[in-house]
C-alpha cells in the first residue's frame, strides 16, 4: 500500500490517458460540426431575410427565386455535415444538440417556401430531398421536422394580414384551410410534454388569428369575388 500511495498505478494512468484522448477527439469533432453549423445559420439567416420580403408585397416569384438559390447552398452544407458523420457512424444523436435548432429553422423556411410555391405542406421526405439528406445514414430527425413545421405556422398570421392589406382577399381562406388541415394532422400525434408539444400548443393561436382575419374579410364581402382554387398556391393570388 505504501509503495502505491505515492505514484498511482500505471493502469489507472493509462486508462485516463485514453479517456483524455477520446474526449479531446470528440471535442475536435464537435468543433468541426460547429463550424459548419455556423455557416448553416448564416445562410438560413439570409434566406429568412429574403423571404421576409413576401410581407412587403413583393411579387412572390421574385422572392422565391432568391430564396431557392440558397437551398443549394444549404444542401452543400448539410452534405458536409453528413461527411463528418461518415467517420463516426451511430453518433448522430451524440452531437444532435449542436445543430438541431438551426435545422428546425431551416425546415421552417423550406416549408414556408414550399407552401408559397405549391400551397401544400412540405413533407418530411421532401424536406430531406431538398437538403440532400438520406435517412439511412444522415437523415432529418422527424421531431426536428415537426418543430420546423410549427415554426412555419407562426409565420402565417403575419403573412395573411399583409396579403389582405395588399389587396389579396382570397389569401385568408386558403391559409385557413391549410392551417386547419395542418392542425388536424398534428392532433393525430401523441406528444410528450416536450418542446414539440409546446410549439404545437402555440399553433392554435396562429389558427385563431387567421380565422379572425378571414372573418374580417368575409363579413365585409371582400372575399366574395375571389374564386380561385386552393391548390394553385398563393402565387396566383398575387396581383
Amino acid at each position, binding site marked *: 500500500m505504501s509503495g502505491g500511495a505515492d505514484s498511482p498505478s500505471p493502469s489507472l494512468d493509462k486508462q485516463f490517458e485514453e479517456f483524455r484522448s477520446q474526449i479531446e477527439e470528440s471535442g475536435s469533432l464537435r468543433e468541426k460540426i460547429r463550424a459548419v453549423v455556423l455557416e448553416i445559420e448564416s445562410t438560413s439567416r439570409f434566406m429568412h431575410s429574403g423571404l421576409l420580403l413576401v410581407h412587403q408585397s413583393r411579387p412572390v416569384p421574385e422572392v422565391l427565386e432568391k430564396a431557392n438559390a440558397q437551398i443549394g447552398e444549404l444542401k452543400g452544407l448539410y452534405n458536409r455535415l453528413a461527411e463528418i458523420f461518415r467517420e463516426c457512424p451511430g453518433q448522430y*444523436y451524440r452531437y444532435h444538440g449542436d445543430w438541431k435548432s438551426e435545422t428546425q429553422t431551416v425546415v421552417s423556411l423550406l416549408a414556408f417556401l414550399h407552401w408559397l410555391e405549391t400551397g401544400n405542406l412540405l413533407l418530411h421526405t421532401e424536406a430531406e430531398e431538398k437538403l440532400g439528406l438520406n435517412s439511412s445514414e444522415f437523415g432529418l430527425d422527424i421531431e426536428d421536422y415537426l418543430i420546423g413545421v410549427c415554426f412555419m405556422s407562426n409565420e402565417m398570421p403575419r403573412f395573411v394580414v399583409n396579403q389582405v392589406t395588399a389587396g389579396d382577399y382570397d389569401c385568408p381562406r386558403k391559409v385557413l384551410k391549410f392551417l386547419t388541415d395542418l392542425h388536424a394532422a398534428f392532433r393525430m400525434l401523441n406528444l410528450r410534454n416536450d418542446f414539440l408539444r409546446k410549439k404545437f400548443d402555440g399553433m392554435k393561436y396562429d389558427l385563431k388569428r387567421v380565422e379572425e382575419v378571414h372573418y374580417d374579410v368575409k363579413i365585409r364581402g371582400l372575399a366574395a369575388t375571389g374564386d380561385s382554387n386552393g391548390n394553385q398556391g398563393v402565387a396566383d393570388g398575387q396581383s
Partner: protein
Amino acid sequence: MTEWNIDQSVAETMAAALQSSVKRVRTMGSTSESSSSSFKDAFGNYADYLNNLNEKRERVIKASRDITVNSKKVIFQVHRISKDNREEVLDKAEKDLAAVTEKYMSKLVKELQGTDFWKLRRAYSPGVQEYVEAATFCKFCRTGTLLNLDDINATLLPLSDPSVEPLQINVLDYLLGLADLTGELMRLAIGRISDRELEYAEEICQFVRDIYRELTLIVPHMDDSSDMKLKMDTMLQSVVKIENACFSAHVRGSEYMSLPGSSEPSSFLLGLSDAGSLFGNTEKRCFSPLLPAERFWTTYRGKFVHVTPSSALLQVTVLPMLGFEGSESVQKAILEWEQFAVVAC
C-alpha cells in the same frame, strides 16, 4: 333606424358570403382532399414513429430505474463490510451485481441499437451511472484497484448474441459513475476509521485523490460538463472529508492504547449511539477522538499512571449526561477498566 339598416346590410353580405363559401367548398372539395389526405398519410407515419419512440423511451427509463434501485442495494451490501465478514459480504455483493447485469442491464441491449444509443442516453444514463458506481465499488473493496471501463464492457458482452451490437457503456457515463463512487468511498473510509482500520482508510484516501486528480484533466473537455463540474465539487468535498478524518485519526490515534486482554478491535469513534454497547464492555472502548484528547496522569498506589481520558470523562461528563451515573454495573466496569490501564503501565 340606421342601426337596423347596418344590421341588415351585414346580414345580407353574410348570407352572400355563406352562399359563395358553400359553392367554393363544393368546387374545392376534390382538390383540397387530395392534398390533405396525402399529408394525413405522412402524419400517420410520424405518429407511428413518435409512438414507437415514446414507448421505447418508457421501456428504457423503466430498465434504468430498475438498474438504479438494484445497484443501490449492491452498494449498501458493500457498506456492511467489516474486518471479519469481508469475504462473505463481498461475495454476496458480487452475486447481486451479477444478477443486476443479467436481469436489468440485458434489457437495455436490444433497445439501444444503432443511433438509439445516443438518442436515448438521457433516459438510461442515471441507471448506467449507478451501475458503474456499484461495479467499481465492489471491485475496489475486493482488490483496491479501479475497475476499468473496458473490463465492465467485457462483462456486458455475453448479454447479447453476436448478431446484435453489444451494449457498451460510454466514457461519459463511466466518468459520471466514478464521480459518484468517490462519495461512497468517503462513507466507507469514515466507517473504516471508526472500525480502527486506519490503514485501509488511508488507502481509500489515496485512491480517491488519484481519481480526482485524473478527472481534473478530463472534465473540462467533457460533452455536458456542467453536470460533471458539480460532481467535481462534491468529489473534492469527499476527498477533504476523508483527509480530515485520517488526520484526526493520525493525530489523536497516538493516544490510543491497545489494551491487554482484548484482541478484539476497539471502537474508535465513540458516538453517543455507541454508548449502549460501550457500557456493556467498557474495557474495549478506551479512546475516542470525539472526546477531548488531553492525557490524564494520575497517581495510583504512589506511582504515576497514564490514564486515557475516557475513564475520567465517563465519570465526570458522559455518564451524568446519560443518567448512568449511579449504575452499579457501570461503576464496576470503570473500576475494572482502570485496573487494566494501571496494569498496562
